[in-house]
């Protein structure tokens, strides 16, 4: 059944980016309605709609706005358009096809939070999208939707586009704030939360592009309409992305709660796999949320009982905020699925995933910087044919010892790094082990000798080859220890 297109109604429609076209379709009606209300009423309305953030964390937008301190002169709104989570591209599609929908959302959210300046933080690689958005901003200013005394309501708001320059952590809300202040995008320790002390040390709201684009529709069509979409706790419509070797990669809209299988095989969505391939793995919520097994594996015979310990097909996972957790994923994330076909070596996937996080970790927190680096090295070792069975346990151990969940890091990047790697190792362990068992005998030793011939000639202290240098500080200590044991 095709679902109604709300956010994606203008995808592929020529001329849809102009203000005239947007207004002809009833554009800025929601903003007019909002400006007639009191800001606090508007916050209550969004709270009632239970609009959960589309940026990854799923935090209700209305609740976030209500954390702002009551007495404030300056409030900033940062629009998170730094879409860098592979393989997510729904914000790009939205800005390309309907820039004014985002601007109207900004105006509504800005009025509700009494924002003085809104910054759209757009990643540097969005070039075409920057020009489209900038033109839309210029048009909106000229029509009086931004600037002083918006539509005669006495409310003033400025809106600027700020271009990033290529860094995944700048998508994290405090990293984004630091980057906007003209520093390196190093996330800040929370608390204080941005709502209290954010951009330029003033109360700040950070929201995702898609979250804001939902606002005009909630206002024009009402909260009840919104609450009727999707399952309980995950209301509304969502832009799903699907990419990889499917027939129709792209961005498709549906209410929250469709299944991963529908996203891959549905004729209105991915349209099935190329060349009749089967799905080996699928990461349904963006890379950071973890991987599911595909239909290459047999179906679970007791369909109503979930058994993650067995190698069963898991594509029935529903894409909403709760069911994804039931399947051991980190959450819904950005609802961007990447499909791995049966012809792909799972070791290549592991290396690619580990490389991404090793490259993007900003380096402030030890377990994140070192953990992601080591996982990349271990993944490369396994792919190079020098893996050991306990490397898999080592990976599992590293993933449980990094991130915000154990409380070790400043931002959520290491959680996002741990989840895909842990789920890959858990769910494809038997395949990894097959590869490791098929290695030639002595492969590990040969590989290590190639890299570090000393490793087998020198004593090993605490798992490390020691190359003593006479007179060095550690010489006496380490050498005597090694000799003693």
């Amino acid at each position: 059944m095709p679902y109604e297109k709300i956010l994606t109604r203008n995808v592929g429609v020529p001329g849809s980016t102009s203000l005239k076209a947007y207004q002809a379709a009833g554009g800025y009606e929601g903003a007019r309605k909002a400006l007639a209300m009191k800001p606090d009423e508007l916050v209550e309305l969004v709270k009632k709609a239970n609009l959960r953030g589309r940026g990854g964390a799923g935090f209700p937008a209305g609740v976030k706005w209500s954390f702002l301190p009551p007495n404030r002169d300056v409030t900033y709104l940062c629009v998170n358009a730094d879409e860098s989570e592979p393989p997510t591209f729904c914000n790009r599609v939205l800005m390309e096809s309907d820039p004014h929908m985002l601007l109207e959302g900004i105006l509504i959210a800005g009025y509700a939070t009494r924002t003085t300046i809104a910054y759209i933080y757009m990643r540097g690689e969005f070039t075409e999208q920057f020009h489209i958005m900038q033109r839309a901003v210029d048009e909106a200013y000229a029509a009086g939707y931004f600037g002083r005394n918006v539509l005669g309501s006495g409310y003033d708001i400025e809106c600027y586009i700020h271009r990033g320059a290529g860094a995944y952590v700048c998508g994290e809300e405090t990293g984004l704030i630091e980057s906007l202040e003209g520093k390196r995008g190093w996330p800040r320790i929370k608390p204080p939360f941005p709502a209290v002390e954010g951009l330029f040390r003033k109360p700040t709201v950070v929201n995702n592009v898609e979250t804001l684009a939902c606002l005009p529709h909630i206002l024009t069509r009402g909260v009840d309409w919104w609450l009727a979409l999707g399952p309980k706790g995950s209301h509304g419509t969502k832009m799903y992305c699907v990419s990889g070797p499917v027939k129709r990669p792209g961005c498709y809209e549906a209410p929250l709660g469709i299944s991963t299988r529908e996203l891959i095989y549905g004729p209105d969505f991915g349209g099935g796999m190329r060349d009749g391939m089967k799905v080996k793995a699928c990461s349904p919520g963006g890379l950071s949320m973890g991987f599911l097994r595909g239909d290459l594996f047999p179906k679970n015979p007791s369909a109503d009982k979930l058994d993650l310990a067995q190698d069963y097909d898991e594509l029935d996972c529903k894409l909403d905020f709760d069911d994804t957790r039931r399947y051991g994923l980190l959450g819904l994330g950005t609802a961007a699925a990447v499909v791995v076909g049966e012809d792909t070596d799972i070791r290549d996937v592991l290396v690619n995933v580990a490389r991404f996080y090793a490259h993007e970790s900003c380096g402030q927190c030890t377990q994140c910087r070192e953990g992601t680096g080591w996982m990349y090295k271990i993944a490369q070792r396994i792919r190079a044919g020098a893996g050991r069975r306990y490397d898999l346990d080592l990976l599992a151990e590293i993933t449980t010892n990094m991130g915000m969940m154990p409380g070790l890091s400043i931002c959520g990047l290491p959680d996002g790094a741990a989840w895909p790697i842990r789920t890959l190792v858990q769910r494809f362990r038997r395949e990894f082990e097959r590869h490791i068992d098929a290695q030639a005998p002595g492969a590990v030793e040969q590989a290590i000798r190639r890299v570090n011939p000393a490793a087998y000639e020198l004593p090993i202290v605490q798992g490390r080859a020691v190359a003593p240098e006479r007179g060095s500080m550690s010489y006496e200590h380490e050498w005597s220890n090694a000799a003693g044991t």
Partner: protein
Amino acid sequence: MSWQAVDRTRVPEEQLGPGLSEAVKEKIRAFFSRYPTKQAAVLPALHIAQDALGYVSLRAMKELAELLEIPPSKVMDVVTFYTHFWTHPKGRKTLLLCRSISCELLGAGKLKDAIRQRLGIGEHETTPDGEYSFMTEECLAACDHAPCLMVNEKMHKCVRPEDLERILADADNDRLDIPRSDLFDAP
């Protein structure tokens, strides 16, 4: 490429590279009114400087620091954090290849080999005629068109290795055919 140690406290005047023209500085000053601090304009300023010079030279960093009233080390701090900025000269056009998962699943690796073979350069290197530089980057948020290759501002979609010749032969392979904002120049 190997590391080169540079003592930046004693770089001879002639090795500082090109500086910013008054027109470029004026363009940067136009961004000041957008932010409560001048430092916040550093990212737009660096974009504009790189558009004008092709890269961010040491002299440009110094001049930006003066313009934004921050120490030069802070400008360098920012320049080296973001992958978009080059600290050595780059070619007229930059080939930016996505290396993340969707693109790699659909053959970005083969495309990378083809580019390196065809142009004879590795990552962060420039062809001898100064036309092309090459780098890879994580997901460019165009995974539905994987594998994707950007030439300056223009995104080429679903590029297979055999398409490379055609793209390189086209002199306008970096032109965006949409109305452009003049806040930033094409690099």
